[in-house]
């Protein structure tokens, strides 16, 4: 894995190439949702009949469902008919032709976050060909992965090249009817990632690294499927710390993870979607269904997330601990400032024996924001000797924000053990003054205290992201104290 970074730097210094999105017709469908629109999407992607049927079935379910309103969120009504469900990728001629044409404020943010120079252009959406020539970073990686037997491609590509795998696993962790947004996603998903790690293979690189250089244009309705076979391992990171803008307001992704016997999946997310301005106008709604199925014995799935963006975040990465001795973990830092709202947490469902789950959730609330942890720990009757430990901490900065905790604990087995603890802390005047009196600036003091608060979670991130996540938190909290 040490070859990862230096190789990229060398290559990218010179060149950048399109990502792995397959070529498609470039027209955009008008706004509106109907069975015809779905047929249109499926046709443009050349999908096989069974997948179109699958989409249509989901659509039929969705029509009968109602948008949930039980979350602690104030959401303006979403007009599903006003969304365009298929848009072509931006043509090069419509993009900025160089960094000079990019909004300087955006560049400033990249600077603060420590985003490497060679990435800024891509992130700003600068037309690729204008800057780099045609050596493909993507191709190099693909060769390495192929050697190991790893399949890592876009979801659309997987449908074309590995339909049997997709058919076998799609919807087995998040069924179409699971919830309103999952049903919508199942009907209209555009693209996402597909990962398959065969038996005994330890994926030779952090798949995050690959993504940083070559992410597809992020879609509204992403669909990701990761399958790790017996004894295999993968570490996957999505998102990036740089603020991502998008004309589309609603993002409803579905991520399904499957771990067979002795398999291990580490899934990290750093999310900084546009949160809206200081007055809460605009901003992205991020409604995601993420679930991992520890299908095999001794399997292990770990979710790590740093959420600082979006106007509204609604997601509960969960683990179904089916296999005996399987383990699930959830580490989260969720930061809300200004008028952001987050309702996030996890569900750990213990089915197998001796299963273990660990939940560490850190919520930071500032400005006028609302930050909610919502969790479910369920010990089913067969879950002999299962164990859960949950630590749920909130930090409030200022008088006008809110932090809330709603942990559901349902136990039906007498040998299971559940331990749940929650604390609330604040950055108080006296703490700040103490730091100031020792010569530390207020900004740095806030950073130190917040960093200490989040340490347990940052430790779980792939190293380069831990550093960026720290910087991201600092930037997001600017102006929150005092």
């Amino acid at each position: 894995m040490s070859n990862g970074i230096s190789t990229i730097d060398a290559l990218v210094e010179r060149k950048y190439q399109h990502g792995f999105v397959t070529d498609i017709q470039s027209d955009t469908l008008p706004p509106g949702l109907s069975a015809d629109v779905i047929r249109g999407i499926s046709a443009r992607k050349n999908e096989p009949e069974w997948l179109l049927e699958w989409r249509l079935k989901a659509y039929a379910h969705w029509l009968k469902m109602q948008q949930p309103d039980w979350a602690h969120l104030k959401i303006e009504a979403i007009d599903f008919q006003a969304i365009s469900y298929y848009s072509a990728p931006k043509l090069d001629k419509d993009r900025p032709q160089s960094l000079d044409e990019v909004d300087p404020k955006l560049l400033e943010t990249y600077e603060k976050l420590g985003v490497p120079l060679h990435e800024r252009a891509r992130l700003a959406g600068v037309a690729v060909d204008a800057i780099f020539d045609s050596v493909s970073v993507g191709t190099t990686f693909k060769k390495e992965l192929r050697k190991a037997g790893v399949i890592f491609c876009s979801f659309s590509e997987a449908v074309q090249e590995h339909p049997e795998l997709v058919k076998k696993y799609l919807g087995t962790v998040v069924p179409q009817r699971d919830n309103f947004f999952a049903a919508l996603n199942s009907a209209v998903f555009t693209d996402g990632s597909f990962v398959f790690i065969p038996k005994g293979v330890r994926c030779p690189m952090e798949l995050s690294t690959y993504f940083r250089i070559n992410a597809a244009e992020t879609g509204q309705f992403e669909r990701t499927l990761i399958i790790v076979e017996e004894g295999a391992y993968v570490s996957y990171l999505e998102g990036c710390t740089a603020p991502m803008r998008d004309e589309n307001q609603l993002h409803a992704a579905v991520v399904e993870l499957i771990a067979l016997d002795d398999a291990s999946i580490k899934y990290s997310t750093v999310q900084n979607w546009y949160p809206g301005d200081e007055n809460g106008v605009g901003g992205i709604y991020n409604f995601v269904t993420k679930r991992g199925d520890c299908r095999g014995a001794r399997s292990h799935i770990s979710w790590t997330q740093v959420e600082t963006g979006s106007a509204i975040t609604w997601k509960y990465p969960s683990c179904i601990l089916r296999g005996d001795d399987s383990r699930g973990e959830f580490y989260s830092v969720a930061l809300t400032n200004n008028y952001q709202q987050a309702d996030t947490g996890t569900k750990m469902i213990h089915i197998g024996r001796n299963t273990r789950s660990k939940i560490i959730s850190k919520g930071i609330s500032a400005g006028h924001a609302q930050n909610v942890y919502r969790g479910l720990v369920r010990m089913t009757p067969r879950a002999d000797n299962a164990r859960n430990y949950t630590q749920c901490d909130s930090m409030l900065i200022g008088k006008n924000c809110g932090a809330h905790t709603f942990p559901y604990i349902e136990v039906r087995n007498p040998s299971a053990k559940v331990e749940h603890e929650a604390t609330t802390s604040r950055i108080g005047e006296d703490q700040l003054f103490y730091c100031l009196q020792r010569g530390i600036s207020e900004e740095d003091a806030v950073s130190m205290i917040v960093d200490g608060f989040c340490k347990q979670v940052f430790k779980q991130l792939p190293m380069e992201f831990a550093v960026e996540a720290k910087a991201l938190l600092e930037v997001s909290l600017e102006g929150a104290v005092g």
Partner: protein
Amino acid sequence: MNEWSTQLAAQLPQDSGSRPDWFRALRHAGAEQFRTHGLPTRKDEAWKYTGLAVLEQHGTQLANGVEATLSSAATPLIEVRHQIDMLDGRMLDTCAELPAGVTLLSLDEALCGGINGLQELLELLPQSAQKKLSSDGFTALNTATLGNGMVIHVAAGIDGGRFLLRWSTTAGGNTGSGARLFNSRICLILEAGARLELVEQFETPHANANTSNIVIQADLGEGASLHHVRLVQEFPEASLITRTEVSQKTDSEYAYYGFDLDGGLVRHDLHCSLIGSAAKASLSGVYLLDGKRHVDNHAKVEHIGPDGFSEQYFRGVIGGSAKAVFNTAVYIHPGADGAEAKQSNANILLSKRAEIDTKPELEIYADEVIAGHGATVGQLDEQAIFYLRSRGLNKDQSKRILTTAFCRTVCDRLAYKMSDDKLADAISQRMMDVMPQADDAG
């Protein structure tokens, strides 16, 4: 609204003209709400884990207003000077020699006037046709049938002493027809600096499948103090639905000790509003269940004024095929700065078919808050069991001692706060007697 609720709604009494207008308007509002929404169902978040099918299965009808006489009553939990019997929700006789400054009347008599603050108190419970605003169907039903009950008023600075309220219902058949639903309302008004101890004993001495729907409203003036002990030991076919609403002014103190030891379906909604500054609410309890029993405790403390203090400390032991539901909530309003709130809930499951659903909630909108909660579900300490066995006590004895000790901590709090070892011991003994046993596997 389901059919059974509709049936019950049809049984609501017509209104008699002899009561004040405001009172009739209140009953009417309750009736309207009940007719619109009926009783809570499992679709309501607050009733998610507790269904009411058993009430329907017993063919429960609204009480028909027949005034029964007390044939037998349970042994009083403790000896007190002031003991009142409530039969079918109706106060039987008043007690003699009330201390000066204490007024005790049946709700009926109290309505004739003379009790300061009674009307305001009764009108506090929001009755609304809007489902989201209404407290819940049982409260609506209670308001719609308002009439039976009791009022205690303690004047400023007076120590009202201790009252034992012994509740029972008239045997109305074990299953099938005859099961009745009785409503009752208790109002406690404590003026500034007043003190009162209320001990409630829910124990009908004969088998019955009745349902009691009781609402207690307590209004604590500045610096007032109310100690509230509740022992529930009803029959496994009987149901007890209660709501205790406490509103607290500055510096007031409310301490609650609830012991749910028997009864088929027991549901308690305890709600404290710390309105004045520096108010204190201390809620503790034990729930022991086995067989097919179902106990649901919902406790909520709202910090509204600044510098309030609240703690919630509950212990549960669940065996058999019983199901315990436990929800503590702390809601800290904007402006309730300096609030300190603690919640602690520990549970032991003893059998494979037992279930516990617990949810410690926290909503914080203020600054300078110290809040924390802990909830655990686990087993008895193996080391401790071995220690006892190595001294000659057998497995069952050892487990019984340890589960009792687990719950005894709540009695200890009572003994300490109320300086009363006798009461704590009496309760502790009862707990020992009904302590659920582990499965052989446990």
